[in-house]
């Protein structure tokens, strides 16, 4: 059964016009104020027990990602093994939330994480540009789901969004959601760097949630500007407000550019102080990242042993 917009808001999704009136009626975003708030939360000092908690939580929230033309089954298997057991020297280290691969690697990834709780996420819909006929995009999604993907990371049609064809974007998301079926959760990627303005990011967030997104996700990692504290804070405000208005909780996934534990902890502070503990769980918050994991592991070792670790003491995936 296709997910539709919550009843209270069903009338806004009827056409480009109604969507436009609704989305452009959302409160504006003052860029300076938003960035100042994000920066201010970035000065929180997370130490000792709080840091240990945050590092484990962050590890458990990683969507360990490889999205290269050069991906091979061997590479994907290594990634899967690492996701399941990030630190072979310390079995108390939590697994990551998921591995994230292209659709043709889903089956391999599935095998690699078999027997664990690690999910397999697959980018689809002609990732990263999304410039393909809708039939191709949907086929892409169905293939991935059929191969066992637990989660689908779709990209929206930024061209349509920027041209004001909100209904087209909406319809595409609902169609993909339908293609996901009942088992696969849908993450909707906006490519915030291409939407460019904070007002657009807020509108895209609501458009995605109205269309049935389970997660809203900043970016593909393939453009110059990806996840930032400010755009993630803004999306957290959107999911907070959406739940207040509809009762539906939606997850958030910043992706791309988050490379250090310090950065990851800043994002967790944003979560903690914007939406609170309901989102402090990998069912509702993820990091799309690859190199971040090793830095988290080194920091974890430092906390455990009291000495600084080095790259030779974590695995190269």
């Amino acid at each position, binding site marked *: 059964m296709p997910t539709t917009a919550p009843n209270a808001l069903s009338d806004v999704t009827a056409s480009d016009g109604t969507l436009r009136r609704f989305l452009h009626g959302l409160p504006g975003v003052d860029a300076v104020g938003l960035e100042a708030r994000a920066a201010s939360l970035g000065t929180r000092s997370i130490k000792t027990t709080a840091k240990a908690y945050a590092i484990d939580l962050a590890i458990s929230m990683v969507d360990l990602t490889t999205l290269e033309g050069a991906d091979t089954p061997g590479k994907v298997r290594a990634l899967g093994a690492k996701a399941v057991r990030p630190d072979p020297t310390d079995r108390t280290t939590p697994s990551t939330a998921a591995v994230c691969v292209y659709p043709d690697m889903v089956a391999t990834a599935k095998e690699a994480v078999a027997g664990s709780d690690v999910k397999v996420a697959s980018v689809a819909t002609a990732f990263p540009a999304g410039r393909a006929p809708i039939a191709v995009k949907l086929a892409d999604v169905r293939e991935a789901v059929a191969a066992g993907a637990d989660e689908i990371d779709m990209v929206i049609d930024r061209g349509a969004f920027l041209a004001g064809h909100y209904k087209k974007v909406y319809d595409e998301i609902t169609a993909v959601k339908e293609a996901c079926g009942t088992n696969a959760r849908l993450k909707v990627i906006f490519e915030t760097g291409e939407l460019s303005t904070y007002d657009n990011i807020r509108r895209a967030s609501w458009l995605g949630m109205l269309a049935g997104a389970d997660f809203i996700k900043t970016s593909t990692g393939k453009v110059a500007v990806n996840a930032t504290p400010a*755009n993630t804070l803004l999306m957290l405000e959107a999911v907070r407000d959406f739940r207040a208005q509809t009762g539906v909780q939606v997850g958030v996934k910043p992706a791309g550019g988050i490379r250090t534990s310090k950065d990851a902890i800043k994002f967790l502070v944003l979560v903690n102080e914007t939406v609170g503990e309901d989102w402090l769980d990998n069912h509702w918050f993820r990091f799309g990242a690859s190199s971040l994991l090793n830095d988290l592991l080194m920091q974890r070792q430092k906390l455990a042993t009291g000495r600084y670790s080095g790259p030779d003491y974590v695995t190269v995936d």
Partner: protein
Amino acid sequence: MSDARLSVLKTYKLYVGGKFPRSESGRVYEVTDSKNNWLANAPLASRKDARDAVVAARKAFGGWSGATAYNRGQILYRIAEMLEGRRGQYVREVADAEGLSKSKAADQVDAAIDRWVWYAGWTDKIAQVVGGGNPVAGPFFNLSSPEPTGVVAVLAPQASSFLGLVSVVAPVIATGNTAVVVASERSPLPALSLGEVLATSDLPGGVVNILSGRTAEIAAPLAAHQDVNAIDLAGADEALAKELEIAAADNLKRVLRPQPVDNWSATPGTERMTAFLETKTVWHPTGSLGASGSAY
């Protein structure tokens, strides 16, 4: 004898809210020339006249301060035009009031007319000279602009009945303040006549209100008035100035203390304008065009 026509004397009145009332007190006092010859009876303004004048000035403040600087300049220039047309009358009044020769009095009147022209030109320039953008260290556009303080009580200089008067009134209103003026106690007639020119120069009623009478008596309620924002003590002696400054502290009026002026003809600076200006600074976020500004 028969060839001397009996002249028609003028009844001098106050100028309040654009109208020419007699003093509410019903009282007048005798004004004489330097040789003690009777010139006229001037209204002896009371506390209530002062109160009415403040009400009129407050009422006029919104419109006058909100008028464009260009418009205020036009009106101040119009005052100069009107004075030029009645130059003879003012020369006569100033000569009588201050005991000056006709030519000395004419110098005073000419300088007074030119003073209006000087301030007419200032109305749309003062903001550029004393205001401006501030290069703050952050993503903000920050602009400081001068704004009129509000209702200003002006004690006109005692000795210079016309040039001195114009020199203290024009800078107050040029920037958008409104004024309650206490004329020279001994020589109020040129000031009262100025009201007639102001009334016919498109100056909105209430922008300038002119009272005559005992300076100390009228000034006391003005200095203590909670709806007066500032006071120019030019016409007060040392003892009165101190007393009024103390009274003015009750609502923190801006006080311009009396300063010795040898020669009112000298080119004024901007000080008499800036004394009755507030600086308002407004901050606006600028931010970046896109959402890519934030990085860490």
